[in-house]
């Protein structure tokens, strides 16, 4: 009966119709809006509310920013210019961005000598270049040597002085490496580790000064010395934050390993360190750095305040990081440790090749979280009289020309911090995607 239809149906289509464009309500922007903004009466209500809030915010902020006065010598002059432009009759909100135009250099560099601004900028470029090999897989691995040299170069660029000092300190790390290699060849791993700690310490305590003088004499390259007290503004926050981040990561990993260690003394020392530093607020540590240490140090020994702050911020962040990394270590299945043992790897090789890569990957969000927190916490140094951006903004407001100006300065500072923290956050997401090994 295959031809039944041939008799009963007059016409049978033998080709497919070309697909029609969906109805207007089911495509493009309209569909998206229906699906995401107006899918039910409740969502319609929320959308309208949201738009109203957004509108009221923007209606306040945009004209304020749009009407900005960019060139003036004082807040009162700003107001005069505004009144001249818009008339005194109605209230016109207008930002007095002239304070940024005049004082941007202090907000960025503090009291760093103006003709030497190229040096912090060069240090920043070195820093970004040095990050490349560490952060991005596409950059050649060999450039890691540049990364290792970068901290000393950056120190020299920022503070200046003879090149001998940074080079002499760098030699200490070479000494540590040498001691480790020699130690592991001729005795055990433990002796190598101890040697790698003791030798550079002895070198730094006893020999750095003479060696620095010697190198300075041989290579007479010198930059104008800039004392720490001239550092300020966002540069100060950035230096403290970045130094804290870079130094606290290795220290935090070591502490996490120490806390997991079976060796009694190392284990208890790590626990004590972590709990003490984590149990006390950062502001207390900063006040310790600025007030108490002065009483312990002999009179006349001028231990740089910025260095003191960097050390304590580092120790504080390291305690937090140690716990974050410990979380990562705890999340690893027991089998990973046993597999490393079964392969006959020693402790450090097992950590380096098997445990840490996985533990750190798990901990990335926590680590970056700690970093961002640390970076923002650097503004707490305002309480010990360092002129970070917040402290600088207070000092600028103390100038009679700019007294009473708030939002413009805070918006600028907020923007600087946002750029840094947002890039860290984006990078961590990139890293998580790159290291993802599941197949979802």
């Amino acid at each position, binding site marked *: 009966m295959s031809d039944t239809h041939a008799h009963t149906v007059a016409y049978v289509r033998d080709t497919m119709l070309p697909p029609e464009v969906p109805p207007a309500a089911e495509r493009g922007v309209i569909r998206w809006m229906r699906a995401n903004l107006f899918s039910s009466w409740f969502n319609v209500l929320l959308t309208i509310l949201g738009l109203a809030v957004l509108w009221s915010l923007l209606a306040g902020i945009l004209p304020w920013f749009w009407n900005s006065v960019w060139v003036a010598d004082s807040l009162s002059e700003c107001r005069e210019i505004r009144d001249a432009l818009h008339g005194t009759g109605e209230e016109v909100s207008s930002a007095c961005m002239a304070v940024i135009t005049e004082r941007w250099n*202090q907000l960025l560099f503090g009291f760093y000598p*103006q003709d030497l601004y190229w040096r912090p900028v060069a240090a920043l470029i070195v820093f970004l270049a040095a990050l490349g090999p560490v952060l991005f897989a596409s950059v050649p691995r060999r450039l890691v040597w540049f990364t290792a040299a970068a901290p000393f170069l950056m120190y020299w660029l920022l503070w200046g002085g003879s090149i001998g000092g940074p080079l002499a300190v760098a030699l200490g790390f070479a000494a540590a490496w040498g001691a480790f290699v020699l130690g592991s060849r001729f005795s055990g791993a433990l002796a190598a580790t101890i040697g790698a700690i003791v030798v550079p310490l002895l070198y*730094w305590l006893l020999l750095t000064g003479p060696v620095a003088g010697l190198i300075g004499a041989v290579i007479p390259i010198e930059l104008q010395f800039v004392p720490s007290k001239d550092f300020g503004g966002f540069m100060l926050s950035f230096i403290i934050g970045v130094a804290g981040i870079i130094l606290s990561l290795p220290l935090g990993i070591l502490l996490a390993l120490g806390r997991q260690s079976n060796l009694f003394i190392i284990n208890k020392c790590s626990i004590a360190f972590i709990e003490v530093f984590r149990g006390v607020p950062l502001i207390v540590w900063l006040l310790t750095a600025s007030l108490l240490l002065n009483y312990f140090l002999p*009179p006349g020994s001028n*231990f740089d305040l910025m260095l003191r702050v960097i050390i304590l911020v580092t120790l504080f962040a390291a305690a937090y990081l140690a716990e974050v990394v410990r979380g990562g270590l705890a999340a690893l299945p027991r089998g990973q440790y046993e597999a490393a043992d079964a392969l006959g790897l020693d402790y450090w090789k097992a950590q380096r090749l098997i445990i840490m890569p996985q533990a750190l990957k798990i901990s990335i969000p926590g680590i970056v979280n700690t970093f961002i927190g640390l970076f923002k916490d650097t503004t707490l140094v305002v309480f010990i009289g360092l002129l970070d951006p917040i402290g600088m903004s*207070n*000092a600028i*407001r*103390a100038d009679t020309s700019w*007294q009473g100006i708030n939002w413009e300065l805070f918006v600028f500072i907020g923007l600087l911090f946002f750029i840094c923290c947002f890039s860290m956050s984006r990078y961590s997401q990139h890293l998580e995607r790159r290291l993802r090994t599941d197949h979802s």
Partner: protein
Amino acid sequence: MIKSVFLGTFAAAGLAAGVAGAATLDDVKANDVLKCGISTGLAGFSAPDANGVWQGFDVAVCRAVAAAVLGDSNKIEFVPLTTQTRFTALGSGEIDLLSRNTTWTFTRDVDLKQTFVGVNYYDGQGFMIRKDMGVGSATELDGATVCIQTGTTTELNLSDYFRVNNMDYDPVPIETNNEAIQQYQAGACDVYTTDASGLAATRATFEDAEAHMILPEIISKEPLGPVVRHGDDQWADIVRWTLNALIAAEEYGVTSANLEKMAEGTDNPEINRLLGNEGNLGEMLGLDAEFARRAIAVAGNYGEIFASNIGEGTPIGLARGLNAQWTQGGLMYSPPFR
């Protein structure tokens, strides 16, 4: 340097406290720089200008001392200090001189082991209100809401004053002057109270300054002055008499304009002794004869420093009031240079 740092840490315990006993003068001369503690920012008293150079009424004291001792008003390392860090910085030897709107009180002088060498500004706590409140005196403030900085002597003064006058008030606690301005302008409090100099400086920044007034009552004594460490009398004398030289110069009419001419010798033996033409006052201090001449040369006498930093010609616009010379009905009174 790193070496000394570590050894210093180890050697510290035995040497703690009681630091840097005597001979601040020798230290300052040896370092060729005066380490002067100032405020991190207080309008008119200390603030960096656009070039990063510290300016202000308190800063001027530092500059005068540096000029007197080292011969150069720029040989100063300014150390910005907060209210919390100021006394420790002085006690530990981090600074040689504290010139940071610090009130001279019994406990600070006696218990905290400091020496107040004089008063460079007589301040006192006052009240600022909106004119449309229709109040002309602080005694009519019953029931007002008051913006008050927490943890300061102003808070205690306020509660004393209201109790003595049988009035009630509603405190709005705030942390900084800046926050107080926001609250006061937003109408969160009827009254803002702090040091009168601060009130004047704050009022000057208002867009509608004319709509606000500072009440005539001053309810506390806040003598502000430079501070040095206890136990170094020679250094205290140097700072004290440098400050006195600035005050005396105004009294005798020595200004930055006529200083050169006066220094050549005058009929007034007191001026001659002040400027080093007669006697050997400078040597007695351990300085040279012209120390006062150099101190005055930096920014003029006390009156000129007042006028250029916080006086009526500046946005802060403070009247001399208590800080006028004693001959003008004020309290500024230098002991004789004799």
